[in-house]
């Protein structure tokens, strides 16, 4: 009876039997090279000369460092708590910054056409901040590409463990039954929800960043469940570059001149529409789509670069 229950609980076959995302390592020379390098490095740290130079400093300095760190942390928290005690009470309205908030709330719907005041604020009144922030995301993607990209030229020279790199790049995980069955149901829901949040940025909570992040997370789940070769069919490096370029240049041309005009933008002749419809808000909807595309490509690009060293596929 107990055996039958166990058989029902754990199943007849071993689900984890044929799945692994690491190739068995049985090449001796590479292993020796790694071990030797590791031994050389650890020998340097434990060498008596290094220890004596660093050690003498360490012994005297370590106690001083601990004491100073504890004192500075307690002082920081103490000073900040003292300042919090002198702040106005939580939940009261702030009567000093009245004019700006009055303009945003009372004239926001007529001037921007957006029902969501926060969205209208960051994409119409303060559009230059959002422009800078999209460029911050793009710069971070470039930095991670510089540090982590592996292509055929530096695969053999920069890294010693060639076989680990190769197994990350070429070997693909697939056939995991739990992830693929759950993914078949969840991934369309997540992507559709992301597009919904993106397009409804000016009508309900959401906007460019939220929708883009949800879409990026959906793409990450897709590549985890079905393997990288499936994603490579539609998401290549060229596509990612072109999307990012078109989105960022469109945003820059639309709102870049605001820096010189003292935040009084020119009237873009896109109609504002009826507040409450999807095609409303003037330029807010195209800018939302641009920001969402950049965020989605960046989030998936981070994951792809960390996992296997390139955004598209191996060349």
């Amino acid at each position, binding site marked *: 009876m107990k055996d039958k229950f166990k058989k029902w609980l754990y199943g007849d076959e071993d689900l984890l039997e044929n799945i692994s995302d690491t190739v068995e390592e049985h090449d001796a020379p590479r292993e020796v090279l790694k*071990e030797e390098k*590791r*031994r050389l490095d*650890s020998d340097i740290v*434990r060498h008596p000369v290094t220890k004596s130079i660093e050690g003498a400093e360490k012994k005297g300095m370590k106690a001083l460092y601990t004491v100073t760190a504890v004192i500075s942390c307690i002082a920081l928290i103490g000073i900040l708590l003292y300042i919090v005690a002198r702040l106005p009470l939580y939940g009261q309205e702030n009567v000093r910054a009245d004019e700006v908030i009055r303009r945003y709330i009372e004239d926001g719907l007529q001037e921007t056409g957006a029902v*969501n005041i*926060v*969205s209208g604020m960051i994409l119409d009144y303060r559009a230059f901040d959002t422009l800078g922030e999209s460029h911050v995301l793009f710069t971070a993607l470039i930095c991670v590409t510089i540090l982590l990209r592996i292509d055929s030229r530096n695969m053999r020279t920069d890294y010693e463990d060639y076989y680990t790199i190769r197994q990350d790049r070429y070997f693909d995980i697939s056939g995991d039954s739990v992830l693929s069955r759950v993914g078949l149901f969840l991934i369309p829901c997540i992507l559709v929800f992301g597009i919904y*949040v993106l397009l409804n940025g000016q009508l309900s*909570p*959401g*906007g460019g*960043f*939220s929708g883009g*992040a*949800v879409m*990026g*997370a959906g793409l*990450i789940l897709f590549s985890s469940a079905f393997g990288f070769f499936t994603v490579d069919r539609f998401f290549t490096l060229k596509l990612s570059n072109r999307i990012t370029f078109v989105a960022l240049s469109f945003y820059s041309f639309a709102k870049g001149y605001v820096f010189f005009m003292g935040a009084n933008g020119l009237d873009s002749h896109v109609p504002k529409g009826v507040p409450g419809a999807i095609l409303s808000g003037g330029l807010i909807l195209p800018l939302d789509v641009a920001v969402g595309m950049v965020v989605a490509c960046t*989030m998936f690009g*981070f*994951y792809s670069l*960390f*996992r296997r060293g390139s955004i598209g596929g191996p060349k």
Partner: protein
Amino acid sequence: MELTVIFRGILLILLIVCAVCVNLTGSLLRAVVIFMSYSSIMCILWILMESPDLAITEAAVGAGVSGILFLVTLKKVREENEPDPADAKKDEKTGSVSGKAPR
């Protein structure tokens, strides 16, 4: 005491407990998982403060993308447990090299 005040107080105390637990665990994998739950509690706090944009963004980015990046880094570095300083002292006496903690 209203119910919302009690609920908010419990959530704030849970935040501090999560942050302290991240400090004290020995295993890096556990620290990353507790960090993801800390981010989810933060998401509920944003809703209680009437900012739903921040809630969606924090849920997708903090518990989603940022936590996954930490986990992928741990996979590449292959150090789910923090290397014990006691192991290093043992290696000094025997003269061998260990790069990983025992599983």
